[in-house]
């Protein structure tokens, strides 16, 4: 029977009478025990649709302009009173969000936040609340639950916080759970954990699940039905297999082709340049970065975080080295250490002198000063080099804007006048201004929508060919790395554990961590494979003072593929 039935939902933002409609007549149906995936890019209205179901949209300035949202075929949530909605929220309708790090109250302990729900929903008090909270955390496999209750959110990892969010959402025993991009902010292996956990909880409780995501590959494994949204409308909806195997709408086909599907090395680039006589232009040897912890003025440090330890690799012109790993693995620190943005504490970097290495960051919105126009932004590298912004510099600006497919009149415009993808193109042009030999791209396409992401990747490959650039491409996304990297280095707890030709590493991973990382990548091809729930966390790299990393020994697998041999445990 139908748990939720949405008809012709229209939602707008703005002053009454002058609303801008962002959801323009959406229909959805969800039965108990079913998973409905809503897929779309930013601005498609998918999150607003979800927030309209429990009417949280009321609190962000939105208003339901028309249509109905029937729960159990009787209660119309579109017109229900706020008091009625308060009794439904957290009870019948649970919700989890994208950013577990910011979705829990930083000043309240975990036990307080989960306990207040049991107090409200089940009228428990005192010891009973604590017992219920412990059981709820154990249910989502939080180890040492009793101790965790007394901790604050900042003391836990993102994956653990998202499991706690799930425990909180389930505390009210909802019959409908809305999950709004619940894994987008998390690493792939943690994403796999969360998906497995949601699937398990759904089996146990028989609830209906609405899963909102921008990643069509991700929902393949979990959705029964799929709705594809674009520009506030549902452009396609149907059973998951049908939508994936026989997409009817152009936009669905576009999304399916734009999403970088991970294909186990078969999509790796074939234009490798290594071994054709070119000498390395960037050489990193035994790079190490340590941060002291707990030390201070006149006080001995209590330990050191070995963020990067004994990392070595080189780059030849025209080559891309993909650095993959999870948050905290040290991949970004490695990139920053090469540019001396963090000071290396050990090792050598050759070939990064002068302005030979430039960097492009993840978030183009935050990387461009909003008070500068594009001309001023592109002038900065020239000024930083101590040169004048002369006719030659202006010529270079125009040439680069042309190369990154931005119009010439962009020079006089400001960052807010561009889309996210265009802003990242500005960042790339800026990085190319000093005529570098190497670009470090730190999650440079991660914040972009999939179709924009695909275009920026193509652009990067073209620029690489035109300028003979070498790329150091840091990313958590295996599918993206597969498309752009010639070689791949897998970094784990501060050290490279596997490095080599992309095709070889991705198709025949040798290190247990590389295998786990690859197994966690969701893909349409492998959507009927079940994943076991694995709640391992990346080990801490905090070491006592004076600790020396044990030397790594390497084993060769083929001409360009080396794996660190793990000591027998």
């Amino acid at each position, binding site marked *: 029977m139908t748990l939720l039935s949405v008809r012709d939902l229209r939602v707008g933002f703005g002053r009454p009478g002058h609303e801008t409609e962002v959801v323009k007549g959406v229909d959805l149906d969800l039965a108990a025990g079913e998973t409905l995936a809503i897929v779309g890019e930013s601005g498609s209205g998918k999150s607003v649709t979800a927030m309209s179901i*429990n009417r*949280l949209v009321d*609190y*962000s300035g939105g208003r339901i302009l028309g249509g109905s949202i029937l729960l159990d075929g009787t209660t119309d949530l579109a017109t229900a009173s706020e008091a009625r*909605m*308060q*009794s*439904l*929220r*957290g*009870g019948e309708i*649970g*919700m989890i*969000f994208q*950013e577990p790090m*910011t*979705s*829990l*109250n*930083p*000043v*309240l*302990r975990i036990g307080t936040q989960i306990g*207040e*729900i049991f107090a*409200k929903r089940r009228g428990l008090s005192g010891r009973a609340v604590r017992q219920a909270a412990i059981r709820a955390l154990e249910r989502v496999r939080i180890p040492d639950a009793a101790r965790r209750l007394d901790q*604050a959110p*900042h003391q836990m990892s993102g994956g653990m916080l998202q499991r706690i*969010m799930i425990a*909180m*959402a389930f505390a*009210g025993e909802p019959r409908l759970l809305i999950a709004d991009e619940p894994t987008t902010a998390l690493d792939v292996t943690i994403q796999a954990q969360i998906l497995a956990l949601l699937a398990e909880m759904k089996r146990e409780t028989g609830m209906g699940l609405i899963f909102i995501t921008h990643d069509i590959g991700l929902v393949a494994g979990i959705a029964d039905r799929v709705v594809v949204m674009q520009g506030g409308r549902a452009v396609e909806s149907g059973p998951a297999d049908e939508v994936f195997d026989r997409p009817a709408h152009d936009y669905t086909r576009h999304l399916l082709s734009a999403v970088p599907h991970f294909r186990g090395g078969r999509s790796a680039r074939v234009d490798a340049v290594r071994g054709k006589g070119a000498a390395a232009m960037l050489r990193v040897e035994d790079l190490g970065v340590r941060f002291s*912890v*707990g030390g*201070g003025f006149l006080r001995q440090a*209590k*330990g050191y975080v070995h963020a990067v330890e004994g990392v070595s690799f080189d780059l030849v012109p025209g080559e891309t080295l993909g650095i993959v790993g999870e948050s905290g693995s040290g991949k970004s620190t490695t990139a920053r250490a090469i540019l001396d943005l963090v000071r290396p504490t050990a090792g050598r970097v050759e070939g990064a002198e002068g302005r030979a290495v430039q960097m492009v960051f993840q978030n183009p919105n935050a990387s461009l000063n909003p008070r500068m126009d594009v001309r001023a932004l592109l002038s900065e590298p020239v000024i930083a080099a101590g040169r004048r912004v002369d006719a030659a510099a202006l010529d270079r600006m125009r040439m680069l804007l042309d190369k990154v497919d931005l119009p010439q009149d962009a020079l006089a415009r400001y960052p807010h006048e561009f889309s996210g993808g265009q802003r990242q193109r500005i960042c790339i042009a800026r990085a190319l201004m000093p005529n570098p030999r190497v670009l470090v791209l730190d999650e440079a396409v991660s914040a972009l929508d999939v179709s924009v992401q695909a275009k920026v990747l193509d652009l990067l490959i073209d620029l690489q060919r035109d300028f003979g650039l070498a790329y150091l491409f840091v990313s958590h996304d295996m599918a993206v790395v597969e498309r752009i990297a010639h070689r791949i280095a897998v970094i784990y707890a501060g050290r490279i554990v596997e490095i080599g030709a992309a095709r070889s590493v991705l198709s025949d991973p040798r290190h247990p961590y590389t295998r786990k990382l690859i197994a966690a990548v969701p893909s349409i091809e492998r959507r009927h494979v079940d994943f076991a729930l694995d709640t391992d966390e990346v080990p801490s790299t*905090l070491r006592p003072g004076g600790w020396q990393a044990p030397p790594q020994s390497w084993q060769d697998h083929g001409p360009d593929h080396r794996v660190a041999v793990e000591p027998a445990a």
Partner: protein
Amino acid sequence: MSYFLRRLAVFPLVMLGVSVFVFIAIRLVPGDAITAMLGTEGGMLTPAQREALTAYFGLDQNWAVQYLRWLGGLFRGDLGISVTYGQPVLQIILDRFPLTLQLALMSMVIALLIGLPAGVYAATRADRPSDLLVRVFAMIGQSMPNFVVALLAIYILSVGFGVLPTMGRYVPFREDPLGNLAQMILPAIALGTAFAAAVTRISRAAMLDILSEDYVRTARSQGFSQRYVIWRHALPNALIPVLTLSGVEFGYLLGGAVIVEQIFALPGLGRVVLDAILQRDYALVQGVVLFIAFNFMLVNLLVDLAYAALDPRIRYGDRP
């Protein structure tokens, strides 16, 4: 706790710095204590008499000797003798300080009782007429000098409604608690108005930011009522900037309030400082300034400790 002790250990250093500054600053002001003390009668002193008086107060020595003597006295709890009052400086401070402390506390209580609810209320009704009204009042409250507020308060509450006494001899709290409170409420309002307005503005701004935080949305998704979400989830986060502001304002008030004390004829620290400076009463100025500096540091330290109590993310070096 070790953090607390480390912070306390810095106190003597700061005090030493403050003592040098104030010692020199007051001596750079033209004029001398003996002339200021005796006024026109000073002209009738014979040179011998003047010398005797100067020697009595130790003012015949060079600055370095004077400073070291004064510093030595500090370690014995002796802040010197006031030329104007003919009393030990410490005694004068201890006599006046309870009133100043009481006034500062009452002002802060008024500021928080009015400012916090007003700020929270305005934030939850952002850009609606009631929010606008609160903001206009807050602007007026902050831009009006406290003596204007004092005069208005006297006019409205004492002259107009006759509910509070206007003037009269100061009655200490332990002699007549009710009489004392009735006497102190007007000056506390005069000092608390701008304070309340500042609290209103800062708590409104903080609350506005926090109401769009993800964790507030989470609390709402659990079905908690607007009131619960605001008081339980949002307010504890909004208190941190309010605490910062209150600490600075309170520390400032502990230095005495010259104009308001004058208007209401209250014998607080503010008037002592003013008199002491006008009279070139070196020992008294030095002692009071040192005392004020100490209070300010203490308040700051307490504010920092309160941060840690409010926000578990703030821990002062007690974790690995």
